C-alpha cells in the first residue's frame, strides 16, 4: 500500500486535497492541535463531523491531529474531546503527548493511533513501546534516513509515515524549546514563532566569522523538503504514507501539490521499471516553490546543503530575536525558618561534566548528581572507570549518583547503551536517567536500577507522569516549557515525585545539523568536517545582541543554548510544596562555579538564607518561561 496524505487547515483545502487524489487527509480541531496561530484555520466540532462523513463518502481516510502537549488544566476538556472524536470516528488520531496513550487505554477508545513527528520517535525500542499502546503508525523523525526506516519496519512491522514535501524544522521536532521558553508560545503547543528563521552571526572562540567565509545570515533556515524526484526509493524503502506538510496552506497549494504527487505515484505503481519523473510536472513543482528544495536526511545528513543562508526565498517571518527575560528583578525567596520537616524537603540535584565538579557538588550539599550522557567538546565522555569512581565518591559522601543517557538515542547510541547498562548493575549507582521512550525501554529491560525520566519527555501533565510510572520510572523531570504555575499544578496531581530544573544553561534546540562543520569545515562536502568542532567554543549571535552558545556533543549533534542561564533562585516558593527535587544543570560550568551555585541553592532550600543578588554568573541569567503565568 502507498498512501498519499495531504494536509487541510480549511474546508476548501480538504475538498481540494480529496479532489486532487489524496488517499488520506489530516486535519486538526480548534483544540489540542498544532498550527494554532490562525483563528480562521482548523475545524470546529461540527466541521470535524462533516469532514469524517465527507472523506468516508469519497473513499478517503481522515486523521485528526491531537498533537499538542496538554497542560494539567486542560485534561478534563481533553477527555470530552476524545469522547467526541470516538463518537464521530475518524480513521486515526495523530498524537504527541503520551497522556493520550494513557487516556485512550483508560477510556477504552478504539480509534487507531499514529505517533506524530512531534513525539521525536527515532529508535526501534520506542516503536515497541508505542505498539504496546495500540500505535499502528509512526511519523518518524526527519533526521532518519530511508535505510534506517526500512530496518525499523522490518524489525517491528510498524507502518512508516514520512514527510515528502514542505516546510521542515531544522531542530529535532518536539525537542525545540526556543519559542516556548522565550515567548511563552510553545512549538509543542502549535505556536512556534520560528526562531530558526532569524538571522544570526556566528563566532568561534569569540571571533566573528570572517566575512568571506560567511555564507549569509540565515544560518538555521532549512530549505523545504521535496522528495518528488525520489518516489521510487521511498516506495521501495517501505514507506506507506507520504505526508505533505502544510495545514496553514491554501486550498490551491494543497490541491496542486497533491495532484503532482498523485500522478507520479500512480504512474510509478502502474509501471515501476518503466518509470521516469515527468519533467514538465517537476518544472511546475520547482517553479512554484516557496523555498529551495532539499531531501533533508532521507539519504543521509545533508549538512549545509539543506540551508538557504541568503533568506532570499523566506516567505515570511513570525518574530524577530528578543533579549531574554532577565533574572535581575529581585525575588522573595523561600520563607526562612524551620517550616516543614527536613525529610519532606525537596532534594537538590545537579548535573556535572567531570569528577572535580562532582566533588564540588557533593561538597556543597547536592543530594543527587547526574553524570554521563552527552559530553560537549572539548570535554570527553564519562568512561566506565570514571563512573565507578563517581559511584564510590557518592557512597563516601552519603549522596546519590545517577547515570544519564543521551537525549537522542538513534541506532548508534542505542547500540552503545547495552554494555554500560549491564556494567551499572555491578557498580550500583542510585539510578539511571533516560531521555526518550526508547532509551527508557532499553534501560527497563537491561537494569534493575531505579529509572528517572529527563526533561526531554516534555512532561506537561500528571497523566503523562502516570504513563511514565507505568513504564517503570520513579522520578520524572517537568518539561522546560512549563511555567511555575503549570509545574506546581502538575506536581500537586502527579503520582510520581517530580523534579524541576531551576538553574543553569538550557538548550533551545538540538539538531543533527553541525554549524561548525557547515561554516568552518568544508560545509557541503560529505566526509570532510576536519574535526573543526574540537575546540568547542562557538556561538550564534542574534539581532537583539544576544549570544547563544553552540555546544557539540560526541555524536556530532549541535545543542544551541539560550542566551541566558535559567536562574530561579528566590523563586522556588510556589514549587516548594509539591516538587520532589530541584535541579541545577551544571554541565557547562567549571567545578568552582558548580560549588557556588549548589551552595546558594542549598542555603535557600534549608531556609537559611534568602538569596541576595547572585554573584555567581559567568553568563547572563534569566528566568526563562517563569516570566509567564502559563505557556500558551
Amino acid at each position, binding site marked *: 500500500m502507498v498512501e498519499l496524505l495531504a494536509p487541510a487547515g480549511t474546508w476548501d483545502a480538504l475538498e481540494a486535497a480529496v479532489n486532487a487524489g489524496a488517499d488520506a487527509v489530516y486535519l486538526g480541531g480548534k483544540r489540542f492541535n498544532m498550527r494554532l*496561530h*490562525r*483563528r*480562521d484555520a482548523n475545524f470546529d466540532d461540527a466541521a470535524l463531523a462533516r469532514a469524517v462523513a465527507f472523506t468516508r463518502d469519497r473513499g478517503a481516510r481522515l486523521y485528526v491531529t491531537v498533537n499538542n502537549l496538554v497542560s494539567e488544566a486542560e485534561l478534563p476538556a481533553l477527555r470530552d474531546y476524545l469522547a467526541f472524536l470516538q463518537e464521530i470516528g475518524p480513521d486515526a488520531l495523530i498524537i504527541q503527548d503520551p497522556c493520550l496513550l494513557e487516556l485512550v487505554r483508560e477510556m477504552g477508545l478504539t480509534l487507531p493511533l499514529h505517533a506524530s513527528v512531534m513525539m521525536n520517535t527515532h529508535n526501534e525500542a520506542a516503536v515497541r513501546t508505542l505498539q504496546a499502546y495500540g500505535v499502528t503508525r509512526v511519523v518518524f523523525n526527519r533526521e532518519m534516513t530511508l535505510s534506517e526506516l526500512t530496518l525499523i519496519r522490518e524489525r517491528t512491522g510498524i507502518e512508516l509515515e514520512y514527510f515528502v514535501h514542505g516546510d521542515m524544522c531544522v531542530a529535532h521536532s518536539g525537542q525545540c524549546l526556543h519559542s516556548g521558553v*522565550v*515567548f511563552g*508560545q510553545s512549538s509543542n503547543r502549535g505556536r512556534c*514563532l520560528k526562531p530558526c528563521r*532569524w*538571522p544570526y552571526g556566528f563566532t568561534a572562540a569569540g571571533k566573528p566569522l570572517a566575512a568571506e567565509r560567511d555564507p549569509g545570515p540565515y544560518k538555521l533556515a532549512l530549505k523545504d523538503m521535496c522528495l518528488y524526484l525520489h518516489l521510487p526509493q521511498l516506495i521501495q524503502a517501505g514507506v506507506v504514507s507520504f505526508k505533505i506538510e502544510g495545514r*496553514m*496552506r*491554501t*486550498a*490551491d*497549494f494543497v490541491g496542486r501539490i497533491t495532484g503532482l504527487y498523485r500522478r507520479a505515484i500512480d504512474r510509478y505503481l502502474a509501471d515501476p521499471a518503466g518509470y521516469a519523473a515527468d519533467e514538465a510536472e517537476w518544472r511546475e513543482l520547482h*517553479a512554484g516553490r*516557496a523555498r529551495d528544495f532539499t531531501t533533508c536526511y532521507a539519504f543521509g545528513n545533508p549538512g549545509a546543503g539543506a540551508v538557504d543562508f541568503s533568506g532570499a*526565498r523566506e*516567505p*515570511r*517571518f*513570525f*518574530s*524577530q*530575536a*528578543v*533579549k531574554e*527575560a532577565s533574572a535581575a528583578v529581585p525575588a522573595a525567596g523561600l520563607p526562612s525558618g524551620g517550616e516543614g520537616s527536613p525529610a519532606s524537603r525537596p532534594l537538590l540535584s545537579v548535573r556535572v561534566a567531570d569528577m572535580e565538579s562532582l566533588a564540588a557538588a557533593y561538597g556543597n550539599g547536592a543530594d543527587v548528581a547526574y553524570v554521563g550522557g552527552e559530553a560537549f567538546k572539548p570535554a570527553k565522555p564519562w568512561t566506565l572507570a570514571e563512573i565507578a569512581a563517581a559511584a564510590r565518591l557518592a557512597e563516601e559522601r552519603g549522596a546519590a549518583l545517577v547515570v544519564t543517557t543521551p537525549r537522542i538515542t538513534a541506532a548508534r547510541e542505542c547500540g552503545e547503551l547495552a554494555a554500560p547498562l549491564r556494567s551499572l548493575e555491578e557498580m550500583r549507582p542510585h539510578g539511571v536517567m533516560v531521555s526518550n521512550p526508547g532509551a527508557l525501554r532499553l534501560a527497563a529491560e537491561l537494569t534493575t536500577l531505579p529509572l528517572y525520566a529527563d526533561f526531554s519527555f516534555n512532561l506537561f501533565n500528571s497523566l503523562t507522569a502516570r504513563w511514565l510510572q507505568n513504564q517503570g520510572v520513579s522520578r520524572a523531570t517537568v518539561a522546560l516549557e512549563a511555567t511555575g504555575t503549570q509545574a506546581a499544578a502538575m506536581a500537586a496531581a502527579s503520582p510520581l515525585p517530580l523534579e524541576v530544573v531551576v538553574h543553569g544553561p538550557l538548550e533551545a534546540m538540538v539538531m543533527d545539523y553541525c554549524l561548525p562543520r557547515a561554516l568552518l569545515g568544508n560545509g557541503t562536502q560529505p566526509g570532510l568536517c576536519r574535526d573543526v568542532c574540537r575546540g568547542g567554543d562557538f556561538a550564534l549571535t*542574534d*539581532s*537583539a*545582541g544576544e549570544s547563544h552558545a553552540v555546544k557539540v556533543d560526541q555524536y556530532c549533534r549541535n545543542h544551541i543554548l539560550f542566551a541566558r542561564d535559567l536562574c530561579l533562585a528566590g523563586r522556588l516558593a510556589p514549587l516548594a510544596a509539591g516538587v520532589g527535587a530541584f535541579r541545577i544543570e551544571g554541565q557547562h560550568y567549571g567545578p568552582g562555579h558548580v560549588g557556588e551555585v549548589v551552595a546558594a541553592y542549598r542555603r535557600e532550600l534549608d531556609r537559611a538564607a534568602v538569596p541576595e543578588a547572585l554573584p555567581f554568573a559567568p553568563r547572563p541569567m534569566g528566568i526563562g518561561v517563569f516570566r509567564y503565568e502559563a505557556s500558551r
Partner: protein
Amino acid sequence: MHDIGILQLTQHLDDAVRGFKAGLAEGGADAAFTYRSADGNAALLPALAAELAGRGVELIFACSTPAAKAAVELASPIPVVFTPVFDPAGAGLLAAGKATGMAGMVPAEAKVAFMRRLLPGARTAGVLYHDSDANAVLEAENFRAAAAGTYEIINFAVSRSDHLSTLDERLAVRPDVLFLPIGRVVEENFATVAYYAELAGVPVVASSPANVAAGALGALAADHYKLGYACAGQAARILAGADPGSLPVGRADEPDVFLNAAAARSLGLVLPADLVAIAREVYE
C-alpha cells in the same frame, strides 16, 4: 461563464477572496475562478499575473498592493479589481485606466478617535512603522497629522525587520500608547513588538485584527470580507461592459473594532463598555 483570475499575495488576505466570490454569487454571476497565490513572496507576483493572463481570464481580482501592481503592469488590457490597497493612486494603479477597487484605508481621524475612546488618559503616542513600506509611511504621516494637538508623537521607524529586536531600547521613553500603522513587516513580527511592549507595560493599538488576537489591546480595521464583497459589485459592472477607469475607487466606510480583554487585564486597564458593545470581536 466568466473566467476570473485571483491574484493573491498571502492567504492571510483570503477573507477578501471569500467576500468577492460571495458577492459575485449573490449577484447571480456565473464565474469560474483561477486562484494563484505568491504565498507571501511578492517577487513571484509578476509571473503569476502573466500566468493568469496566459489562461485568458477576463478580469483579475488582485489582493494587496503588490498583487494589484503586478496585474496592472501586464501588457494585456485585462481589467483589474483590487483590495485591500491602501493608496491606489499613490501606488500608480489608476493611471492606465484599467483598474478600480476598494481601498483598505481606514481614515487616520477615525483611528485617532478610536484611540481616544480606548485610552482616554494617553498623551504620548509612539508610532512604530517600517520606513521603506510606502503604505506604512503614508499612514504614519496621516496619523501624525490627525493626532496633532491630541498626542505628542514619538516616531519609531525601523528600516529592517530585525531592528525590532532592539525595540526595548526605544520604548525606554515609555509612550502612553504604541500605534502600529498597517504594514507587513511590523504585523508579521508582532510577537517581538508584543514581547517588549508587555515588558514595558505599553498598550499597543494595531491595524490588523490578527495582531489583536495575538496580544494588542485593540484595532480599528477594515473588514476584508466586506471589501471583497464590495469589489464583486465593481467586477460585475466591468463584466457587463463598464470601463474600469470610469468606476470610482471605493473605501472602507464602516471599519470594525477589535479588542483584547486579556491584554487589557495584564495592563490593568478596563475596556470601555461602549467600545465592547460595538466590537466585532473581543479576544480573550
